[in-house]
């Protein structure tokens, strides 16, 4: 039974304590009971000593000792059971709350991160996001599981035993705890210090690991330059440093523990002495002296650990702060939008003076883009690196929001469409194919939103010309991809992502230079599959080669965020001096140059003639 998902946004508060309080929503009562249990356990334990004292005082000297003995034994066992049970229950409930709070945080952060905007992810570092959503969550978990409850335990042990001491004898009680404030101060001071030394030790450890890692990954270089001696010396330096930092930590501990041993030991024996004198002058009984010894031991020794718990809590609190920073970030709204058509998108688009700049940047990366597309047309985008091709297509699934102008899809302004609807209907094949480390089948049906039959999956894979490759793996479609499974080549990966796109049957298709990885491997069959896929869908294709864009209904040439040329292949070829024509000429020249180059060494190649790629003749 998990308490319902709360909106963790509420835990973002100015005061951390309030944040923690809200974080505990749904677990407050359990956690409170856990602390009560810890207190009851302390009471039972002190009760044990009290019963023991009473036994010595009243039962032992009495005449009918043997009849009463059974009761004492039973009470002792009952108290022990109580103590054990409550200590267990406290631990169990604390675990339930801390694990529950951690699970909720983990789930929330995981979901939260996948709902951030592209702009956020562009700037964020993977390692940092990961650390916040894993190790920082664990630090918060430990705070609830160990540190807060630990402080509660020490505090309650103190309260319970102090009350017991006060009931026994007030002056004796006050005398017995005299040293506690001093120990508390020393403890906190020590653990703060040792925390810093430990950090330095950890840093040295990671330096050492880096040194080692570099040596291992660069082993060829080390061997090629025969630099083993040098490497050994460099490692020795870091290794020695780590030893010294470790020794420093050891020395700190070897001073703290015996000195507090000494102080507390003296305090304890002094307590024994004063209490013993009280027995001698009749203020205390022998049995109560025995009980006193039990209380005293429990009240003074645990205090030494207080400093560690406090120091750990401050670490946990820093982690919580880092989590809060993440929670604060706004999510992208997926289902907001006034227009939600029931069927498929037809795919008519018109861009009207669209400009775009990234969040927090001053300069536009797209300037006054205007063009229009009929349903089912193929639009090719050409241009050098940084010309804005990818940015332009990223506007369509609303990965980014255009900052000026208007884009209309089927006659409706694009930002009136909910994002989830657009993304379901737009197929996006990215330049770098990304597969998840699960089975190939899972990858193909990824994000489909329904169960697919094997036939469908096979058909999609066949269309993407990857079925045979998949079947050659021992486990076929159930083969795992990635570290724990097979390693696919770039082209194979891209074909799997193509199969994934085919599976989704999108209304609008974006191919972001998707064929660059495929080109060299399997040419013709994949192109045929692609032509099949393109049929009847509005398609945006980013490409470099004239061959890939010639058949487009509209070719846009982008330079520095502006459309500099627009038209069909034939039209653009006529614009002599334009980039398109130049590209075409250069690509044609390649073959001529190759011919010339080969001719330098041989007039006639042995096996006949030079095979050249053919380009259609220029129009004029």
């Amino acid at each position, binding site marked *: 039974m998990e308490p319902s998902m709360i909106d963790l946004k509420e835990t973002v508060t100015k005061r951390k304590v309030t944040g923690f309080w809200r974080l505990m929503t749904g677990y407050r009562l359990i956690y409170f009971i856990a602390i009560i249990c810890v207190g009851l356990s302390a009471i039972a334990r002190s009760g044990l000593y009290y019963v023991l004292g009473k*036994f010595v005082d009243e039962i032992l000297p009495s005449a009918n000792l043997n009849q009463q003995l059974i009761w004492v034994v039973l009470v002792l066992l009952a108290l022990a059971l109580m103590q054990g049970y409550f200590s267990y229950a406290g631990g169990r409930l*604390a675990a339930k709350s801390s694990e*529950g709070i951690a699970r909720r945080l983990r789930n929330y952060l995981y979901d939260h991160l996948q709902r951030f905007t592209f702009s956020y992810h562009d700037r964020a570092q993977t390692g940092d996001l990961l650390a916040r959503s894993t190790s920082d969550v664990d630090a918060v978990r430990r705070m609830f599981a160990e540190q807060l409850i630990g402080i509660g335990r020490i505090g309650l042990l103190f309260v319970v035993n102090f009350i017991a001491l006060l009931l026994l004898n007030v002056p004796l009680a006050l005398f017995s705890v005299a040293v506690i404030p001093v120990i508390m101060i020393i403890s906190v001071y020590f653990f703060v210090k040792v925390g810093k030394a430990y950090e330095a030790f950890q840093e040295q450890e990671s330096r050492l690991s880096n040194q080692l890692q570099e040596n291992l990954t660069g082993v*060829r270089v080390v061997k090629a330059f*025969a630099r083993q001696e040098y490497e050994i010396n460099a490692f020795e330096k870091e290794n020695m440093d780590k030893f010294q930092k470790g020794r420093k930590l050891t020395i700190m501990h070897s001073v703290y523990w015996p000195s507090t041993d000494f102080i507390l030991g003296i305090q304890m024996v002094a307590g024994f002495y004063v209490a013993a004198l009280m027995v001698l002058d009749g203020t205390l009984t022998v049995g109560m002296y025995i009980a006193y010894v039990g209380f005293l031991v429990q009240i003074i020794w645990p205090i030494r650990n207080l400093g560690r718990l406090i120091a750990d809590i401050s670490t946990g609190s820093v982690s919580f702060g880092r989590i809060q920073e993440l929670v604060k970030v706004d999510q992208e709204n997926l289902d907001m939008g006034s227009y939600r058509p029931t069927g498929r998108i037809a795919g008519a688009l018109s861009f009207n003076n669209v400009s775009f700049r990234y969040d927090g940047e001053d300069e536009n990366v797209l300037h006054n883009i205007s063009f229009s597309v009929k349903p089912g047309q193929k639009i090719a985008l050409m241009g050098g690196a940084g010309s804005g091709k990818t940015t332009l297509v990223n506007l369509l699934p609303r*990965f980014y929001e255009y900052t000026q102008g208007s884009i209309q899809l089927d006659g409706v302004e694009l930002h009136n469409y909910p994002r989830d609807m657009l993304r379901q209907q737009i197929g996006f094949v990215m330049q770098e194919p990304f597969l998840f480390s699960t089975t190939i089948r899972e990858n193909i049906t990824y994000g489909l939103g329904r169960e697919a039959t094997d036939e469908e999956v096979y058909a999609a894979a066949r269309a993407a010309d990857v079925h045979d490759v998949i079947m050659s793996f021992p486990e076929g479609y159930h083969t795992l991809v990635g570290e724990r499974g097979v390693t696919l080549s770039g082209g194979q990966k891209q074909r799997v992502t193509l199969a994934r796109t085919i599976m989704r049957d999108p209304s609008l298709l974006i191919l972001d230079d998707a064929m660059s990885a495929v080109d060299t491997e399997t040419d013709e069959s994949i192109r045929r599959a692609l032509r099949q896929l393109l049929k009847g869908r509005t398609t945006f294709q980013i490409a470099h080669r004239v061959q890939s864009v010639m058949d487009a209904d509209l070719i846009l040439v982008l330079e520095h965020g502006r459309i500099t040329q627009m038209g069909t292949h034939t039209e653009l070829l006529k614009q002599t001096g334009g980039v398109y024509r130049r590209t075409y000429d250069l690509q044609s020249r390649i073959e001529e140059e190759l011919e010339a180059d080969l001719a330098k060494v041989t007039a006639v190649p042995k096996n006949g003639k030079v095979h050249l790629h053919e380009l259609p003749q220029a129009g004029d």
Partner: protein
Amino acid sequence: MSEDYMEFEEEEYTSQVNKSTMWRIARLGLAHWPLMVGFLVFIALVSLIESWHTYLSKQIIDMGIVAQDVSALRYYIGLYLATWPIFAVLVFGFIYCAGVLGHLVQYDLRKAMFNHLQNLSLSYYDKTPTGWLMSRVTSDVGRVGDLVSWGFLDITWTVTSIVTSLFFMFIINWKMTIIVILLLPALYKVAIYFKQRILVEYRIVRKVNSQITAAASENITGVRVVKSLRREEKNLGNFQELTDQMYESGYKAAWLSALFLPAVQLVSTAGVALVVWYSGAAFSAGSMTAGSIHAFVSYITFMLWPIQQLAAVYASMQQAVASGERMFSLLDMEAEIVDVPEAIDPGTIRGEITFDNVSFQYEAGKPVLTNFNLTIPQGETVALVGPTGAGKSTIVNLICRFYEPTEGTIRFNGRDYRTMTQHAIQSRIGMVLQTPHLFSGTVYDNLRYGRLDATDDEVVEAAKMAGAHEFIIDLDEGYETQVGEGGVLLSTGQKQLISLARAILADPDIFIMDEATSSVDTLTEALIQRGMDKLMHGRTSFIIAHRLSTIKNADRIMVIENGGVSEMGSHAELIRLGGHYYNLYTRQFREEMEHRLEEELGEREVAMAD
């Protein structure tokens, strides 16, 4: 690769504690025997004093309080007080000795392993994942170091605590002591049972935790795909299954731990009840005093700590011994290539290189080269071409003697290179890798790696020759700029230039280069070309070539396919042959031209922007 990976799976536990491994671990500590003897003696004395303290408490009650004897009370209180300074010194002693010993053993082990790793042959590295080696030198070392120090300390403390407690109990009342002795095995059984189960649960927790991290990491790196495919809900669902597992196993491990102490305590309280029961009768008989009862109760409740500590040590000992076994397997690994005792350093390896009937295989039954014969005159440039993974680096590995021929002989200037030291060969070969590996540190440090005793002027001279000087002085701090881990702060082209300069500085007899496949800009490419020309001049060079200009200018081209040399000759010869090389060349020609074309378009844009 993936199968190898599985073989190197972590967490393989030997449930039996191997005696010889244990002894070898103990010897690590004995290397620093004063510390070891020190902490063992100190901790034994500490436990003796602890047990004595309880006895003193009894004497205070019986001799002082019950007997109403103030002087006896003062005597025992005085004695008790006097032990504290000694106790404190002993505690200081054992923490210091054990702590320092632990760090020292770890230091020794890291050093031994690192030094050993430097001598292992490349074949070992090719078979062993870096991560596996890393864990040996980091986490395994930690576990073994802890066992030698704190583990041994705990065992000693446990044993002496139990023995000394029993000793004092025996003095007080021997019949009662026998009851307690009978109780001990039960206490130990319960403790071990729980520790084992808790260990199993925590192992699951760790496993699930690494799955959670992997899942979170993948979702962050693939977030753009997740968003474009609208998979958020399904992913969260899958992730929730993991966090549910984590919750279950984390919760179970935690409540088992919470149950552990009460369970052990319950056994010991049963002991206390027995004492009370027995003492009732004995008290009236006069053989049991109030102080004795108090002492017995204290001893019994105290004894649960050593027992539970013993269970904990036993559990961690299993892990540490497994760690030890893995570490020792690394330390015992012998280098495949070892210099023969009479190996010499001929002073130079310039001259003719001969492959005489060389056969080679990485794996038995899969020959890569068979009866290969080749003579390369001094100063010749050899281009190795062919698809990735076809075995171009095999030739390089053999020349560098990273691997040795399985049959046949390789000769430098007529001399079998196995009669030379590895250092003599490898220190005279300059190498530039495709993805040049730089070490974190400054540009200077990296350049000087080529020749450690080079002066600053020589370093700059080499950088100038390689064409790296210009970009270096443009860096924020010039030659003192940090390059970052693996050189991440520099571009691939810049890294290549630096590693070229590094090779120039080393002034090698043989030069080997693996050209970068990833595109660098035309200017850098020209610079690299110029640097290479300087280096190759007068030296025998082997280039794993990707660029046409390099290939065409080579004296000899070797086409390597499916592990063997399929074609060999000059550019013109091979083109005329119209075979593999011909296809390779024409494909490469088109790609290079297209690349140049894109750059031309890019430049035009830059021009427009200005």
